[in-house]
């Protein structure tokens, strides 16, 4: 028969266990770390501090976006023309003039485009004690106790880079530092309309956070 002292100890122990369990469930090292597809977009711009952007005037746009690697199955060319058209338009608004010739006169800079994408996979193991994770379902023989239970999830991330670089880059014997690079990284698992809207937003942001990108003829 439990004495009042035993009951007090048991109730205290129960409170302690409940509070501790609740804390473990409620706390997490990175609460709220999930991001939406839109929140995944990151736009980075880097400029060469030795560049006088005001003194640059003419540019030539390459005719295609380079996929890295060339046969990257996670990429297609659905949005290529729109990307190049938008960059062209933004450069024109900043006072730069497009030319169609690389000689006589040589343009002040080239505009290059790169794109890459990769799939990212994650495994979730609900019972790590099994030692086999989800591969072990149903787990190996007796003695291992709980079989592994898990799930996989994955997403595709992509990066688009726009680079303004000196025509000297054609000289492969020297290293040429770009004048400016704008890059956008984000999750690509979205509708075509969603991807197009985010690309437009991202490219506009590249120029918005680069106010120095302005020709002063």
């Amino acid at each position: 028969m439990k004495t009042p002292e035993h009951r007090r100890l048991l109730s205290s122990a129960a409170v302690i266990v409940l509070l501790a369990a609740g804390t473990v469930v409620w706390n997490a090292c990175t609460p709220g770390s999930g991001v939406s597809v839109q929140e995944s977009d990151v736009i980075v711009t880097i400029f060469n501090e030795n560049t006088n952007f005001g003194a640059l005037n003419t540019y030539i746009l390459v005719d295609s976006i380079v996929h890295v690697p060339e046969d990257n199955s996670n990429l297609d060319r659905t949005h290529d023309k729109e990307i190049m058209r938008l960059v062209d338009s933004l450069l024109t608004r900043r006072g730069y003039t497009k030319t169609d010739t690389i000689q006589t006169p040589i343009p002040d800079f080239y505009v290059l485009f790169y794109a890459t994408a990769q799939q990212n996979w994650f495994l979730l193991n609900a019972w790590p004690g099994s030692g086999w994770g989800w591969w072990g379902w149903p787990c190996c023989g007796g003695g291992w106790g709980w079989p592994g239970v898990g799930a996989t999830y994955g997403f595709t991330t992509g990066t688009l880079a726009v680079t303004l670089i000196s025509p000297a880059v054609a000289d492969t014997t020297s290293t040429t530092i770009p004048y400016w690079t704008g890059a956008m990284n984000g999750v690509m698992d979205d509708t075509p309309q969603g991807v197009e809207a985010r690309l437009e937003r991202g490219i506009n942001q590249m120029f918005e956070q680069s106010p120095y990108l302005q020709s002063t003829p």
Partner: protein
Amino acid sequence: MKKVLIPILILLAAQTAAAQTNLFTLQYNVSVPVSDMSDYITAASFRGVSADWRWFNIRKTHLAAGFSLGWQVFDQSATGTFQLDNGAVTGAQKRYLNAFPMLITGYYYLSTAWRDPKIYVGGGIGAYYMLQNFDLGVNRIEASNWHFGAAPEVGLQFPMRNSQGIVNVKYNWVNESGEGIAGQERGYAYWGLNAGFAWDF
């Protein structure tokens, strides 16, 4: 009669003292970053817990000693553009800092009457394990380091129906050590306001 009574009284006194020489506390912690730590995170943390074990001198003097373990989660989200030396970055940021203090503690109680409310002063000294995460979009940078630290504390312990209550204010000072996510040694400091229950055994 005295030959029987005196040993019995001594044993009773020892048994009574032994029943009150251990105190276990479980506390909910709210913390606010200050000093250099607020350069990384400014938001207060409402996700904290700590557990203390305190041994009281069997002669019922004012002193207690023990150890303390804790876990505090700081998190803060931000959007917008931040400038670099030669560029800028725009994206959804999520900043996290997990603090795990592991301290040896000592306290001085202003009163030894066990069932009366009593103020105490003291604190702990020991190690802090700090886990720093910085998320930008789906990209994460992480750094974890061990630090030396100390936590002075002043509090109030008071009787409740089947246990005791405890509230205290604590200042956590964490020495610079290791490399943070920016590649530099970093220290931390945060105030804690804590409240919880205590059980004596």
